[in-house]
C-alpha cells in the first residue's frame, strides 16, 4: 500500500458525506446502498464513522459527471478512467467524482459495479494512494469481484490502519 503522506488524513473520526447527484444507470436506492456499503468497508476496520447529509458541504462530496467538470481533470468518455477522488483536506479534498459515461451497475458484471469503484475512491478520500499489490482494492485497475461476498484485502486493511488505527470495537 501507499499513502499520500502520514499526515495527509482526516484529523477527526466522524466524517460527513453527501450524494450531490445520481447516475441514470441505476435506481437512486441502489446508488445510496452502493455508496453506504463502500464507506462501511473502511468504517469496519477503523475508528471512522460516516454520516450522510442532504444539503450543505460535506467532507466527502460525491458526484457523477462527464468530460470536463471543473476540477482540471476531465473525464475521458466510456472506458479508460472510471472515477477519481481527492486526498483528505478542505474544499475539494476528500471529494469523489464518477465518470457518468460509464455504465454503472448495482451487482451485474455486465457493467462497472459502482460499489467496487466507490470503495476504491473512498480509499483515496481517506488518504490511501495506489497499491502495487494486484489483489488490493487500491490497485488502480478495475477488476470484477462479487459485491455480496467482498472482503477488504489485507493490504488495504494494513494501509488504512497505518493512518487511523484499528476499529476499537
Amino acid at each position, binding site marked *: 500500500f*501507499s*499513502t*499520500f*503522506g502520514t499526515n*495527509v488524513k482526516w484529523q477527526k473520526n466522524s466524517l460527513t458525506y453527501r450524494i450531490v447527484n445520481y447516475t441514470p444507470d441505476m435506481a437512486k436506492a441502489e446508488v445510496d446502498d452502493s455508496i453506504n456499503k463502500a464507506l462501511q468497508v473502511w468504517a469496519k476496520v477503523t475508528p471512522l464513522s460516516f454520516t450522510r447529509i442532504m444539503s450543505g458541504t460535506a467532507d466527502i462530496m460525491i458526484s457523477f459527471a462527464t468530460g470536463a467538470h471543473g476540477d482540471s*481533470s476531465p*473525464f475521458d468518455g466510456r*472506458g*479508460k*478512467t*472510471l*472515477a*477519481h*477522488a481527492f*486526498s483528505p483536506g478542505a474544499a475539494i479534498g476528500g471529494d469523489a467524482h464518477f*465518470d457518468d459515461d*460509464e455504465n454503472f451497475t448495482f451487482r451485474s458484471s455486465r457493467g*462497472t459495479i459502482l460499489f467496487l*469503484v466507490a470503495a*476504491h*475512491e473512498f480509499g*483515496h478520500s481517506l488518504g490511501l*494512494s*495506489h497499491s*502495487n499489490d*494486484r489483489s488490493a482494492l487500491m490497485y*488502480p*485497475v*478495475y477488476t470484477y469481484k462479487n459485491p455480496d461476498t467482498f472482503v477488504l484485502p489485507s493490504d488495504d486493511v494494513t494501509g488504512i490502519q497505518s493512518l487511523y488505527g484499528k476499529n476499537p470495537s
Partner: protein
Amino acid sequence: AVYSMPVTEASQKDELLAEGYLKKFFNLTEQRNSSIRRVISPMTKKLSEMQKFMGLQVTGKLDAETLAVMKKPRCGVPDVNMAR
C-alpha cells in the same frame, strides 16, 4: 544486457496512447531540446516504472501485455505519489 523484443511492433496509435497514459499516471514529462545524451529515454524509464508497479515483466518496451493493461478501465488518480 539482453532485451526482449516485442512480437509485434506497436502502432503509432498505441505509442500515442502509451505516451498519454504515462504522462497522466506516471508523471512522464516532455524532454525537448535536451543537450544531454541519454542512455535510457524517459519513455523507457517510465515504461519500466509502470511495468514494475503493475506487476508486469519489466522490459522497458511497449509490449502487448503492457498495452493491454493500459487499455483496461482504471482509477484516474496518478500512480506516482505526488506527496512523496
